[in-house]
């Protein structure tokens, strides 16, 4: 049984000092094209692209004025679209926030990515809890996130009313996107010369969504995308986002730090949904000198790397051991966050995949043309389709 493997692309890699060793041109399309080509050569399922509606920061909320780390990044949906014609099989999963965007725009953007990539689009739906980002829109007053984080009782945000609203809104945004993707029947375009009709209007549907945060009439302006519905994914660390992912996503990224934790998380998520694919996130430095490379970068950055995901340093063979162990705990795939680009990506795409193949745990060729196909997810029938 093949394991699913994705990589999370962000700037020069997930170590904030990574740019100092490779000095990549992160604001050029060519840099990203080379990365995604490497991932595709490794036959990975998909790449994700990080994004946010504000610059990177080491602070929980607000700009930090550091000059020694990468600041700035592209709109991820447009970057994914720019990469689509340069690739043929790998899935492209940009991040787009549900908090300040228009669900209609995001839905047609992701549908368009699916059209231009021939069915390889996904969406990482993410909430933006930060007050600093809200001030870029000036429509909503958010409590400063560091206040929430510093509340007595720890950092479980699940009971915070502000955070609950953000996830409720995210759930509505995903629901609206899925309805909009379904709002055109697959065969709505008829080009019937005799009656002069380009479309069969009975196969276009108003979605009539009315929720607490917005309402959307529909139908979409973009015909149903090749996958029917692009793959929706979400990162989740706690009960509330697990619920969001179980209800709205096709793939959830979780962050266990051991096989044992992985087993517990899988059990909790499975209690909410039998269908959602469970991927684990791992931040990885690969190779014989992985630990030394990480230490060197830590020193450059002036502090030891911290992450929500477990941080792995070791060889591709050792990583393969971990992945297979976690798979036995119920994890179906992995989203690896390369510590430094392009180095760790190359180790993943070449070294790790070879290891896994050697153990019969990874594909030898792309077996499907769409991302859903690679993930073994069926193409959904439109909810509006006649059952006659």
């Amino acid at each position, binding site marked *: 049984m093949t394991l699913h493997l994705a990589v999370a692309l962000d700037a020069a890699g997930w170590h904030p000092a990574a*740019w*100092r*060793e490779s*000095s990549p041109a992160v*604001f050029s*399309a060519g840099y990203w*094209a080379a990365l995604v080509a490497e991932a595709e050569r490794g036959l990975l399922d998909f790449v994700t692209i990080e994004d*946010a*509606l*504000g*610059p990177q920061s080491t602070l929980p909320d607000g*700009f930090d004025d550091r*000059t*020694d780390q*990468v*600041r*700035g*990044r*592209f709109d991820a949906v*447009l*970057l994914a*679209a*720019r*990469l*689509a*014609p*340069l690739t043929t099989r790998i899935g492209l999963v940009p991040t787009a926030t549900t908090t*300040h*965007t*228009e*669900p209609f*725009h995001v839905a047609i953007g992701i549908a368009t*990515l699916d*059209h*231009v990539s021939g069915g390889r689009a996904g969406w990482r739906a993410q909430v933006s809890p930060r007050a*600093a980002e809200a*001030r*870029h*829109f*000036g429509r909503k007053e958010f409590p400063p996130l560091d206040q929430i984080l510093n509340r007595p009782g720890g950092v479980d945000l699940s009971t915070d009313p502000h955070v609950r609203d953000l996830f409720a809104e995210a759930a509505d945004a995903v629901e609206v996107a899925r309805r909009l993707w379904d709002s*055109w029947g697959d065969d709505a*375009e008829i*080009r019937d*010369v005799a*009656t*002069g*009709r*380009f*479309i069969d*209007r009975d196969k*276009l549907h108003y979605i009539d969504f009315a929720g607490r945060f*917005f309402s*959307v*009439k*529909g*139908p979409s*302006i*973009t*015909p149903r995308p090749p996958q029917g519905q692009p793959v929706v994914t979400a990162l989740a660390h706690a009960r509330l986002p697990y619920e969001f992912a179980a209800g709205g996503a096709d793939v959830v990224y979780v962050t266990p730090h051991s096989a044992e934790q992985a087993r517990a998380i899988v059990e909790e998520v499975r209690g909410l949904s039998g269908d959602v694919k469970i991927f684990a996130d791992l931040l990885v430095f690969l190779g014989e000198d992985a630990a030394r490379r990480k230490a060197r970068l830590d020193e*450059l950055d002036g502090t030891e790397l911290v992450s929500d995901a477990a941080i792995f340093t070791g060889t591709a063979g050792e990583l393969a051991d971990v992945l297979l162990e976690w798979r036995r705990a119920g994890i179906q795939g992995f989203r690896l966050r390369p510590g430094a680009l392009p180095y760790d990506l190359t180790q993943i795409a070449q070294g790790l995949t070879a290891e896994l193949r050697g153990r019969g745990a990874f594909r030898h060729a792309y077996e499907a043309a769409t991302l859903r196909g690679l993930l073994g997810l069926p193409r959904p029938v439109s909810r509006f389709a006649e059952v006659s």
Partner: protein
Amino acid sequence: MGRTARAGPMTRKQVHLAAHFPGVNNTTVWADPRSGSQIDFASFVDLARTAERGKFDFFFLAEGLRLRELKGRIHDLDVVGRPEALTVLSALAAVTDRLGLGGTVNATFNEPYELARRLSTLDHLSEGRAAWNVVTTSDAFTGENFRRGGFLDRADRYKRAAEFLRLARELWDSWQPDAIAADPETGTFVRPGGIGTVEHSGEHFTVQGRFTLPRSPQGRPVIIQAGDSGEGREFAAAHADVIFTPHGRLEDGQRFYADVKRRLGKYGREPHQLKIMPGVTFALGDTEEEAAENAAVIRRQQVGPQTAIAFLEQVWGRDMSAYDPEGSLPDVEPDLSEGVSQGRVPIKDRAATAAKWRALAEEKGLTIRELVIEVTGRQTFIGTPETVARLIDEHVQADAADGFILVPHLTPGGLDEFADRVVPLLQERGAFRADYTGTTLRDHLELA
């Protein structure tokens, strides 16, 4: 770069050309056997590559954020369905090198921070080829697809658009041109003070914070405006680099051209800083007769029997489906109480329009379909490639336009003949570039 071209021995004004990807109106002929997909990416690539082969300034996409309705139902006769403009343009940036990439995006249903960022991204990813056609069209009908509904009166839409644009510019300018040092030796990625803070407090927006992208290759994307009202023209004079207008005929074009260029002085701008580009259609043939015949065939394809009735209904404001499109105009009066068409630019005075149509039909003895063909016809350039090249050049030299946005009637092959047969003749006349001389859209448009 543009300056030297103008000042050289050949002082001929240069023609600018853009390619409109056809769709979502009855100009686009979908029933023709040569008509391909309106949504497959291959169609976009095909048309964009043709435009680039023809050394066009830019590729252009329209927008509509809600499907049009007639008599309370989705209009089903024209091409329906299109991709999100900036996403498809970003993909096209990967398969073209020089062609400008212009997208229509409504200012009313977007937020400046997010859209400024998307436009800047497109400018980076295309190495300086992005353009934004700022429209304000949509109303409460379109608003039903968005968070804030139909929240703006017509009069306020251009005010919001103007403030939107001012704020977008603040965001685009907020990073110093040399903000990115990316120097591994010193460990400086961003120069101290390289990223400025934006503090904007206005009637429509209060935005405070930092932008997420370095200055894009063009500094700011090319701004296109496409409205026709007095406010629209004023907005263009103040903010736009290009105007997309319906005024493609010689005298009408000259009037519009003079009017808009005159307005520029008020904003401290010079005439060459705003390019006027009417949207035009064309029909070609080996002889004048053949071209006229082709034009007539296209018109009949564009106005099929059902489309003729649909046009009548938009003006008459009632169900006219019982009437024979090949018969004469019935004697019923228009119902002026309310319009039956949604999502289109409304017809201004329906009573007067109906009276005019009736008079014309009686005078010339036209059937319903013939009448609609006559009154909705906007074919601008009909003739042999020599004739069309000459007409285009003449319009530009006579200050009726600075160039044209060509709206082919076929997807995707509708520009092939133009690129292969008309463009070389324009080049021979010294009125159009033999090759791109710059890399950015601002270079092509001779905008500093």
